């Protein structure tokens, strides 16, 4: 029987939630790396027992932990993320040039075919790659050295590269997104990059249509249609049907189009999920009602999903990497909150229940569907 493993990163440790295919009863293990910030844990599609975790601390820096047995045991691997050459400067909050400084890994994206190959998105924004299972990391510096680099600037959470999407049909194509620079695409396996932000409009920057400077919060893709991308921007939910060359707004009837995560149904590439958040100055749901919104038409028409979610006095946030889907039938949807709840739906979002309620603030949620 199928199993589901949910990998949860929190402010004070990592947790592994497991269930059978019914997704009714859950086993919770953790905290792993207790007391450390676990920004992200993700499994290899090529070997589901191979997991990578980003373990960070303001005191002791970055660790990379690797498990070869599905999260039962972990071992630290290489933690040196050295920018290639002289890294130069980006914009600081006050507009002055600021030297690139490594802070942490926000996101790991394991290769679709090789468990030893992983991409890491880091703060200050850059993309690194390992091909030896995490022992050594090398920067794909063509991204940071894109001519627009000096114009990139940090969002409130830091200048992070938080989204990495590998095209399953074209191994040379990689999408990434940076807050606050925007989305970029490589068509040569990461050597060179182009900004793909045409159509984004951001009132928070001097030129709302600028090539870079947009605060992209997250981007999602369905593997069957790698040219179709969905984006939750600072404000606005956006869609591209041409690999990011052009974007159009699909916020439609959302009550607010500010938010962080966005994800796509595992079996229906036109069904997408967001969690609307009141505003950029009030990071919680409108009226204290936690609602996931689903569109079955690839955007524009949205419906609230509320059954099982708190509909009063709920003032949590859902961060950009804290939503994921399984590939069972029916598709399961999962998200974690800054209040420490991890909610799951085993029926495409129709109804929800808390798998676990009182974890530290959730930073990331990933799901593995196991045979």
């Amino acid at each position, binding site marked *: 029987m199928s199993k589901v493993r949910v990998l949860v990163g929190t402010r004070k440790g990592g947790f592994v939630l497991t269930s059978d295919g019914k997704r009714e009863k859950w086993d919770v293990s953790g905290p792993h790396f*207790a*007391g*450390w910030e676990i920004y992200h844990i993700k499994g290899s599609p090529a070997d589901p027992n191979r997991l990578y975790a980003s373990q960070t*601390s*303001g*005191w*002791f*820096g*970055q*660790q990379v932990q690797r498990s070869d047995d599905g999260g039962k045991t972990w071992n*630290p691997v290489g*933690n*040196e993320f*050295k920018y290639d050459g002289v890294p130069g400067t980006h914009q600081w909050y006050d507009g002055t040039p600021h030297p690139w400084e490594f802070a942490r890994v926000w996101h790991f994206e394991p290769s679709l075919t090789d468990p030893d190959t992983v991409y890491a998105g880091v703060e200050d924004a850059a993309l690194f790659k390992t091909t030896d299972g995490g022992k050594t990391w090398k920067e794909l510096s063509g991204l940071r050295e894109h001519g627009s680099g000096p114009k990139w600037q940090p969002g409130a959470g830091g200048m992070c590269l938080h989204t990495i999407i590998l095209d399953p049909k074209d191994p040379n194509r990689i999408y990434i997104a940076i807050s606050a620079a925007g989305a970029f695409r490589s068509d040569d396996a990461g050597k060179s990059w182009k900004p793909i932000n045409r159509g984004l409009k951001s009132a928070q920057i001097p030129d709302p249509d600028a090539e870079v400077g947009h605060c992209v919060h997250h981007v999602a893709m369905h593997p069957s249609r790698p040219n179709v991308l969905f984006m939750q921007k600072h404000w606005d939910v956006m869609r591209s049907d041409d690999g990011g060359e052009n974007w159009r707004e699909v916020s439609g009837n959302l009550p607010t189009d500010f938010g962080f995560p966005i994800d796509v149904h595992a079996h229906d590439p036109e069904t997408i999920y967001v969690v609307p958040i009141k505003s950029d100055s009030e990071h919680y749901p409108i009226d204290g009602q936690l609602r996931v919104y689903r569109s079955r038409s690839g955007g524009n028409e949205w419906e609230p999903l509320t059954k099982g979610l708190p509909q009063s006095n709920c003032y949590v946030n859902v961060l950009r990497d804290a939503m994921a889907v399984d590939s069972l039938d029916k598709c399961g949807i999962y998200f974690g909150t800054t209040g420490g709840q991890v909610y799951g739906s085993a029926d495409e979002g129709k109804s929800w229940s808390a798998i676990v309620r009182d974890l530290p603030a959730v930073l990331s949620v990933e799901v593995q569907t196991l045979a």
Partner: protein
Amino acid sequence: MIKVVLPAHLKTLARVDGDVELDLDGARPTTAAILDALEARFPALRGTMRDHATQRRRPFVRFFACERDLSHDAPDAPLPDAVVAGTEPFFVIGAMAGG
């Protein structure tokens, strides 16, 4: 032997329970020599106390011994005699900060 007391998180990473006893193998006893020896014996500690590239102490890590803060001493400054003799420990401290 030099006695080193690590903070809890670094003990976990290094997989040690108590204090660490270090033999500097004839190296001149300095803070840098202690960190070199710690990192050689416990590779997981590389990058946790000082930056990989610059070798500068991480901002929220402190080094105390003999009721003195050695954090701002030069890394190659000599250690107090009592630390070298092993009668006083060398403390690696996670600075008080955060929540």
